[in-house]
């Protein structure tokens, strides 16, 4: 089959690779109908996340049709149209049983090698480095999905592929980020980043009862999307000298009750702090630039919540003193998609959640390298590139 593979830093190629096969009894083979780029892919494409190997099939946000099922698969069957979260979860371990699916104990074949990085290993993620399991990703024609009964969610009749595709990752990640904010009536939530995850976090905050949502980005077309599709108020940080002062004014001097960082380690910023980070990161001395996170920490009100969805490694100049003295709560996680998908599908069926506008550009798999180039540079207003293999 054809698949989009990582061959080195900033080197993606479409290759012919062997078809996947059923290996374990809970596996299914999925024929991929749609697969999309994710901002976190850029971290390993740029070489900031270790343990990619040349030839790895990438992609972790996808949907498809079940082509073949292992002997122990009970709930899904051949021909089912399903959407699958990015993290592989067994459903049986203590973490899965406590709805912490991305922390699954039983799905990462490289757990022992990942453990020293984190203390304890997480579950596996499709197409996202060998530390996260090394499973072949979704930018391919077919894919093996382990523990299919836990990971495959049937798509209800009447929903188009692009309405469902983003329920694989962007929507549950954003929804979880908003859920972490413990939103109370009257709360104002600020979200850094208007990519797929950021937009989904904004929409989720409103679904969960936020009074107002403020979005921060530098791309006018993305900010427009936040206003038009969600109803967020927006700040273009490239056009203002002081985001904090504006947030201060917009919130009556209190600050947002919760701040969500949907940017992560490759955050852009302005000023000397950014240049310091950029220099350090270029030297690979530290992996994170962290401008968005630092700004969010400064901006959030006292006693507020900081919800971190961006992907990070090790950060310097981390304002722990601000967190301590303002008495903040910091929450973060990789998405527990299996926990959120049922309610997200319900929102989709009711018409309360339709992320299809994120799919600004479509490509064939063969155009994969060009699609990622455009995605990385945000050319032509591209928010998400979608492949139809």
């Amino acid at each position, binding site marked *: 089959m054809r698949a989009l593979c990582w061959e080195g830093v900033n080197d993606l190629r479409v290759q012919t*690779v062997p078809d996947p096969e059923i290996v374990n009894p809970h596996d299914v083979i999925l024929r991929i109908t749609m697969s999309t780029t994710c901002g976190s892919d850029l971290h390993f494409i740029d070489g900031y996340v270790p343990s990619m190997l040349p030839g790895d099939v990438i992609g972790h946000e996808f949907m498809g049709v079940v082509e073949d099922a292992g002997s122990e698969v009970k709930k899904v069957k051949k021909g089912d149209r399903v959407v699958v979260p990015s993290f592989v979860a067994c459903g*049986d371990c203590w973490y899965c049983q406590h709805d912490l699916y991305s922390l699954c*104990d039983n799905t990462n074949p490289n757990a022992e*090698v990942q453990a020293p990085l984190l203390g304890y290993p997480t579950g596996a993620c499709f197409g996202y480095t060998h*530390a996260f399991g090394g499973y072949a990703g979704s930018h391919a024609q077919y894919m093996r999905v382990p523990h299919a009964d836990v990971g495959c969610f049937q798509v209800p009749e009447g929903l188009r592929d692009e309405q469902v595709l983003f329920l694989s990752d962007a929507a549950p990640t954003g929804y979880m980020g908003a859920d972490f904010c413990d939103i109370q009536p009257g709360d104002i939530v600020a979200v850094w980043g208007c990519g797929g995850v950021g937009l989904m976090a904004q929409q989720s905050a409103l679904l969960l009862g936020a009074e107002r949502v403020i979005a921060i980005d530098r791309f006018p077309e993305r900010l427009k999307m936040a206003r038009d599709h969600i109803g967020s108020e927006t700040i273009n940080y490239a056009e203002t000298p002081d985001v904090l002062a504006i947030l201060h004014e917009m919130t009556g001097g209190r600050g947002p009750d919760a701040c969500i960082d949907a940017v992560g380690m490759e955050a852009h910023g302005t000023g000397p702090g950014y240049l310091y980070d950029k220099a350090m990161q270029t030297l690979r001395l530290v992996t994170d630039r962290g401008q968005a996170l630092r700004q969010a920490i400064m901006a959030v009100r006292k006693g507020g919540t900081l919800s971190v969805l961006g992907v990070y490694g090790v950060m310097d100049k981390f304002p722990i003193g601000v967190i301590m003295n303002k008495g903040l709560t910091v929450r973060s996680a990789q998405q527990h998609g299996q926990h959120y998908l049922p309610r997200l599908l319900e929102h989709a069926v009711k018409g309360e959640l339709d992320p299809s506008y994120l799919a600004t550009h479509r490509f064939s798999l063969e155009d994969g390298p060009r699609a990622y180039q455009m995605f990385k540079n945000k050319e032509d207003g591209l928010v998400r590139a979608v492949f139809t293999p």
Partner: protein
Amino acid sequence: MDVGSPLGGPATSGIADALKGALPGGTGKASQEQRRVTLILGGVLLTLGLRRVSFGGAALALAGGALLYRELSRQSGQAGAETHMAEVTRSITIGKSAAELYRFWREGGHLPRVMGHFAEITETDMDQAHWTVRVPGGRSLSWDTRVVESRPGELVSWQSLPGTELPNRGEVHFRPAPGDRGTEVTLRLHFQPPGGTLGAAAARALNGLVPSLLVGDALRRFKSLVETGEIPTLDRNPSARASTA
């Protein structure tokens, strides 16, 4: 090792050696592939570790070399490179009762799968097994073990029979974990490496990280098999690495 940077420090340089010895020979193409993957992965982690060392080195230049010496000697001492005895203890918590886990360990022929990542095991009867392990240099070691003590729901211990080049013993303990967490399982392996060239290679492989990885993996494989009925694997995982074959 600095607890804050678990990959930091010269101890990391053991990883590459470790992985060489740690990995299963395996006969199939898949396991060869997995071995290669893990080797490269080890290299990546090693590089990370070395980078930390150079970061530390910069600070060291400011503070003088005496502390480096202390640091190095402390770490090599910790790794136990000078001793000819290797013992590894690792624990894992599994969401089943101690009685179930004990049965699973003793009965049903699961051990060959659990240990399959580094040893081929043939169980001759409930108490005896034949082990074969590949070591660096293309050679293999084998031995027979016999269960010397077993207490249902509590522990199993075994040791190698006389005559092997690599005398060893092992034990697995089961004790209830708090709350709804299941059972804490502790696996301890103890090797007495032989002398000679093979002995030196084995000693190197058996000290520090290698057995820790082996034992850690064995426990994870046991847990996954018991909790989910399968062991996570990258067998036949599509990639452009295999496409030339």
